[in-house]
């Protein structure tokens, strides 16, 4: 039985994605099915893509 309380320390929430997982800005069911780490990786990728597109757009302007 665990003895720690609700305030126990959060463990490493930046767990690596399983190998061979392609993360695209569009996302996938596979990423959703990975749960928290999948969502985090997908949103990170999406943000990177948006910033990249914004940067390209600005450069073009």
């Amino acid at each position, binding site marked *: 039985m665990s003895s720690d309380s*609700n305030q126990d320390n959060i463990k490493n929430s930046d767990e690596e994605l399983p190998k061979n997982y392609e993360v695209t800005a569009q996302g996938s*069911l596979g990423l959703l099915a990975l749960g*928290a780490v999948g969502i985090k990786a997908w949103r990170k990728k999406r943000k990177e893509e948006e910033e990249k597109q914004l940067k390209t757009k600005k450069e073009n302007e």
Partner: protein
Amino acid sequence: MSKRLAKKVLVIGWDAADWKIIHPLLDAGLMPALEGLINKGAMGKIATLDPPLSPVLWTSIATGKTADKHGILNFVEPDPATSDLRPVSVTSRKVKAIWNILTQEGFKTHLVGWWPSHPAEPINGVCVSNSFQKQSKKPDEPWTMPKGAVHPKDLEEVLAEYRIELSEITSAMLLPFVPDAAKVDQENDKSLFAIANHLAEASSIHAASTWILENKDWDFMGVYFDTIDHFCHGFMKYHPPKMDGIPQEYFDLYKDVINSAYRFQDMMLERTLKLAGDDATIILLSDHGFHSDHLRPKKLPKEPIAPALEHSPYGIICMAGPNIQEDEQIFGATLLDITPTILTLFGLPLGKDMDGKPLLQAFKEDVKPEYIESWESVPGECGMHPADIQEDPWAAQEAMNQLIELGYVEAPGENKQERLQKTRNETDFILAKVYAGSRRMEPAIEILERLYKENPDVARYGLKLAHCYQVTRNIKGLRKTIDELRAKNLKELPHLDFLEGTLLLFENKPRKALLMLQEAEKSISHMPNLHIQIGNVYNKIKRWADAERAFKTALEIDMNNSGAYHGLAISYLRQKEYELAADAAFNAIGLSYHFPEAHYHLGEILYHMKEYKSSSEAFNVAITMVPGFKKAHQWLIKIYEEHLNEPEKAEQSKKFIKDQIKGSITIVSGLPRSGTSMMMQMLKAGGMPILTDDLRANDDNNPKGYLEYDDVKKLAKDKSWLVNAEGKAVKIIAQLLQHLPDTYTYKIIFMQRDMIEILQSQQKMLGKNTSVFPMGLADTFAKQLSKTESWLNGQPNMEVLYVNYKDVIMNPEEQAENVNAFLSGDLDIQKMSEATDKKLYRNKN
């Protein structure tokens, strides 16, 4: 504390998951995570409870108690703050859930998405309520997490990050569900929106649960998904094979949705199992199944909780873990067994007030569960809310909108009061169904009689009331309700024919019953229970081949119907088709293990196949389920003495019968002059031993003799003479029946006759003027009969056959046949019918 069998337990709820969809996917290798779980554990069907409403069921799963005890009775409940309705909240649960018990015992306990679990309970761990994932219906407003969705509060911000908003779902995620999504007319068809909604909500629950598994220690975790249920309610009508009336265009677009939903659920399962680890004990279950074949209703009635008609009665259960049997079938599981099973896995005692049992057959080790009176009286902090908790009404309203969209809740009218009253009625109706579903007919009938009286136009109240009268064999009530419903000329008429057919069977009119059931068959031939009842009639009148056909028809409609297999087994048995009978009996047991009559008949079949050892095993299972099953004991005595040479075991059954099982007495009853003497004469002529002292000689009123026993008159004061009646028939008038002790079992042949005829006959016998009808006496007798009949309904040791005097006079052979069938005897039917005399029917009305 008993031995702990599980280090940690993970319960995963898949609402509405059904083996009928899963098996083909497993065969095609499309649900690898579930396949892995099945391969290293035990699996089976799990019986749902009636009514199959998810919040009611998941609370029974979490408490081990029926809904009348746990208090969650509907999708909605009144909100005292607004005088309107709100989605049912966890604060309405009256008893401790498994996570409260485990919290109280110091286990680290997490819960995600359970229905209902909002507002999140302050358990010893993380609680993410069923409002956490709900999508806002106002696209222009920010999507905020409902207050109270997460416990502890310091995790609200962290977990809110893992909620997936509807707008985030992309075409890449939708295409596996609808490959031709581009063809969807999104102006008029909101199906893609619904799929995205279900995906966003499922992913939110999954993300929260995986985050907890990754970041928190745990002993117990429960995760619930409504995903499959919601997909099924929206898209099962498009699942192959194509249903009549579904446009080809829609079928082509959405035929893959259901399989894709299951596959997505399996993908999420793979991740969950990986995070849970090999040392976790997994329990994966659904609360009910979902019709996916020809049993899919073509149209749902416009009434509350109508979508539940799409649910099928068996869900799935899989268990795997260090102390769980591998490659084992689980038989006879019900939703009420889950909490007792979890408590046993943690080495904790069961509450005697729980309605389920632990699934010990799934464990590797022999376990003897310990019991306490109730967990409710065990003191200590258990993580339930204080009584005065308040809820965010906006969060509740959002969830309510979804329920309205799903069709579970009537769209709000202008009159809140009327809506509240309607919901109150429906909640009471559900409570009545809960009582009826657990065979507590008295409180069910009390509620239904009131509901039907106050709402005479709501046919389903009347139909359910009639059904309860049918179960309790309240013939008068059933007749009255059927007549009232018929007078309303309702569209439910075929169901009335079905009920009336059953009524006629009770009234000992199997041939008329058959005609009525065949009439019902013209309109509701899709109902397996109708064919089962037809089969039962044929079995009763010994038309075994016809019975066989009827049960086979029931099985063509529903191949998982244990009652149909049981009836089929009996019809084969009586035709001496023992191999086929055995197959059918095994099928009945496989589908519904707790089926003592099926085990009994299997024993009889195996005996005829000379499989004496197996036969004894089947009879032993029957008496394990029903210890007082006298006929099973009698078979065992015969087998042990005559075939297995195990006299000591035969002796055990003999001793049990002698010490524990009450003797059986046949009673002929009714009002004086209702035909009781005639029935006694029939029984005597048929070869039945009669208890009579012949003190009362025959006379003009009864030229063939009264066949009475003088001590019967003092039954209220002296019951010692009943020992002389064991195995015999004795005449006891209706008014004295209530003095019978419960130390015996009784088969009562209750004679019924027109009251005017009875009283005229009595007047004549007493030498009174037969032209003066004693109205007051008629009223009193009618009340006494009604009271006696209701009392008989509640007596577990009394079995009653109602026989109409006139029917016996008109069709003596048919009635003799039925009496013989009721007594399971070998009476001489010809001699019985010859004992009647039409000439003695002198007082006709």
